[in-house]
């Protein structure tokens, strides 16, 4: 087991990601943040907390998206759906998708498909905490990356959050 991000590094990384998002979407007026269920929500919650310290919280539009019904491996095993909560239209908005680990890219493909049910965004960008860059199965790349790592398929990246696992850290198994 190898630590990729310690608690302190994780906190700094989340802060940096929030600032980078803000850098490209000043004042966040036409931008919405969407965390991917289930595990991306922990990251998106933290990023939103950081943003609330910098900009008027009233300007932050934040939703949660579950992609279960859009998966391409739906027949292989049953996945249990989580709640989707997007109480606003995405027509002509700039969407920042947020997830914890970018691996094969299939989750993001499904998410792009699912987003269209809420309108046609003017732009979609992707923010991830960990990018396993050599394991992609689809042409999908992140716009905001916490940490890029080189892994083989047999390895596992585990993101722990204080809320669920009692500790903030990213480890490689």
């Amino acid at each position, binding site marked *: 087991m190898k630590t990729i991000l310690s608690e302190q590094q994780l906190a700094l990384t989340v802060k940096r990601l929030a600032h980078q998002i803000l850098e490209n979407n000043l004042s966040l007026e036409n931008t919405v943040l969407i965390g991917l269920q289930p595990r991306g929500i922990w990251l998106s919650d933290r990023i939103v907390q950081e943003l609330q310290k910098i900009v008027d919280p009233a300007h932050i539009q934040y939703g949660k998206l*579950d992609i279960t*019904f*859009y998966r391409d491996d739906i*027949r*292989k095993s*049953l996945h249990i759906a989580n*709640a*989707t909560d997007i109480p606003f239209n995405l027509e002509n908005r700039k969407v920042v998708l947020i997830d914890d680990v970018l691996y094969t890219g299939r989750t993001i493909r499904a998410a792009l498909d699912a987003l269209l*049910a*809420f309108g046609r965004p003017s732009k979609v960008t992707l923010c991830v905490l960990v990018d396993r860059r050599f394991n992609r199965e689809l042409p999908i790349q992140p716009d905001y990356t916490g940490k890029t790592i080189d892994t083989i398929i047999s390895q596992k990246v585990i993101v722990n959050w204080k809320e669920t696992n009692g500790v903030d850290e990213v480890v490689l198994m």
Partner: protein
Amino acid sequence: MKLSTKHLLGIKDLNREDIQLILSTAEQFKEVLQRPVKKVPSLRDITIVNLFYENSTRTRMSFELAERRLSADVLNFALSSSSSAKGETLLDTVNNILSMKVDMVVMRHSASGAPHFLAKHIPAAIVNAGDGINEHPTQALLDAFSMREKLGKLEGLKVAIIGDIMHSRVALSNMYLLRKMGAEVVVAGPPTLIPKYISEALGVRVEYNLKKALQWCDVANVLRIQLERQNQPLFSSLREYNLAYGIKRKMLESLGKEIVIMHPGPINRGVELDSDVADGPYSIILNQVENGVAVRMAVLYLLANREN
């Protein structure tokens, strides 16, 4: 997590976890149905046939809409326009349909046990959309979903099922489900329409006095008199039935508390329910219909993904 059964033949075969899984999945589908685009691609590789050997408005349309919202391919079979009139048996009809590569069968039939018979003989997943006087599982699931949505829980809920208990598949499925989920059930109606050993068999209480049943309950699920299934007179007239067991606004207002009125449809206005009750503030009848689509989407989704 997945369902413990390959088919949905009746609530009798489901366990608590199955019911909870269906209801929680239905909640997610209900959200899908609020989106600008109310469709997901989950079942785009699945073909479903709706075999309706008995008339239906709500159930058939609700199933078809659920199937289409899941992107499944849909085939419809109606008794009147089929070859059954030429003497083809149920099993032959279904095997012919299945040879066209159909994955799931949704069936309504006037014979109790017809879907159970099919399940023994064909490989496709079967969803019972009502069989004779036996079960109507998706109706019970959508009733439970609607009760839970309105009152927040099923455990400990007091539900009165009122009307033709003897001939109602909705009543039987509801009793199984509510008892499994820890609700208390009273069945009310004329003695001739309530089976004799129902208390012992299903763990429900029998009440012949409508007012007492209403005073006791949180929810009244009111049923239609199934005249088409009664081959002998079981009460003197519909007018007399209405006088003794029809639910009237005045009676509800005299209870001193609010109860929820449900009805699986079709309503016979002026018989079991007066119009001002069916359309009144206590009624969640149209919410039941709305929830039916989400619940059926959940059932189809969970059964389609059960293999492997």
